[in-house]
């Protein structure tokens, strides 16, 4: 028995099965990301004064790299344009152009993930160090000539681990001073290196989820979004190559598949359009 409305639209709704399915799925995704966004907003507005943002450290403003975030936004917007142009190319019966646009889309997805992992790495090696005299330093640290890396959790340092390894001094590449809005202060010296005695340190933590609720939510939402980008890229890559055989056997259904894939891709990009100003700019 043939399943009805797999590629032809149902007359009463004007929709084929997969389109109903993807919109139901996207509705559940909106609830998932909506809950996480709400968690972020509630944490932020209910934080005690001086804790979020931490005025002394200009937190959370100035923590994320806005030029990189903007570039990644441009990459995702480009990928949405190319995915819709791929679908339009199929509608116009131009398979070769479809494949070119689809490959560009997948390349954009991997470029986004590559840039994001670069950002993650920067955060994992970026520390906040509170000193005995009440001051706090932020910057990248170097212990025994090595910088911590995010793909190697054993590189992460804590006060206990420094004591355990009998490290007496660490080098800190101190961030330039920032104003309350996170902008570098006028005339503030750029990164400069200082040596800090471990005995002067009260606490030390990298820009990771355990250090501050901002990072907990930032990593949770961006990692979940990154997984969606990866999943979408794999599916679109499948449609561009092995899955493209359907173009010969059932072109109408193939076009519908690309539309459904494109709808998911647009949703993932739309999440980023909201995420970028919320965590980077505000």
């Amino acid at each position, binding site marked *: 028995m043939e399943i009805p409305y797999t590629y032809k639209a149902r007359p009463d709704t004007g929709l084929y099965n997969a389109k109903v399915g993807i919109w139901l799925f996207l509705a559940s995704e909106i609830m998932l990301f909506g809950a996480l966004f709400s968690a972020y907003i509630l944490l932020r507005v209910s934080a005690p004064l001086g804790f979020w943002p931490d005025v002394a450290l200009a937190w959370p403003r100035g923590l994320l790299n806005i030029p990189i975030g903007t570039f990644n936004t441009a990459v995702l917007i480009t990928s949405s344009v190319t995915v819709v142009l791929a679908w339009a190319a199929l509608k116009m019966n131009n398979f070769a152009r479809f494949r070119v646009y689809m490959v560009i889309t997948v390349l954009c997805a991997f470029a986004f993930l590559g840039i994001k992992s670069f950002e993650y790495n920067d955060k994992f090696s970026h520390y906040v160090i509170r000193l005995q005299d009440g001051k706090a330093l932020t910057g990248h640290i170097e212990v025994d000539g090595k910088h911590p890396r995010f793909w190697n959790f054993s590189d992460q340092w804590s006060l206990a681990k420094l004591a355990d390894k009998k490290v007496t001094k660490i080098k800190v590449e101190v961030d330039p001073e920032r*104003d309350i*809005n996170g902008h*570098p202060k006028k005339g503030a010296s750029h990164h400069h290196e200082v040596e800090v005695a471990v005995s002067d340190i009260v606490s030390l933590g990298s820009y990771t989820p355990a250090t501050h609720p901002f990072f907990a939510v930032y990593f949770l939402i961006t990692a979940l979004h990154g997984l969606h980008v990866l999943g979408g890229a794999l599916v679109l890559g499948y449609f561009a190559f092995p899955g493209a055989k359907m173009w010969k056997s059932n072109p109408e259904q193939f076009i519908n598949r690309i539309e459904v894939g494109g709808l998911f891709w647009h949703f993932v990009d739309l999440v980023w*359009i909201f995420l970028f100003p919320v965590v980077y*700019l505000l």
Partner: protein
Amino acid sequence: MSLKAFHIVFVAASVILMAFLSGWSFLAYQDTHSTEYLVWSLCAASSVVGLVIYGRFFLRKLRNISFL
């Protein structure tokens, strides 16, 4: 909603984001007088114009495809 309609929504959201980024950068420029922020603001403003032009081109190109 078809991919065509969703794409229009997406382009509209991108236009709003870029307009916001342009305004944000301009305010940062007023605070800091750093030329970088001014350039940033102008780039974001020009991308607003670019996205609006693209949106019109897209609607013209796909005028025969349904919004449903």
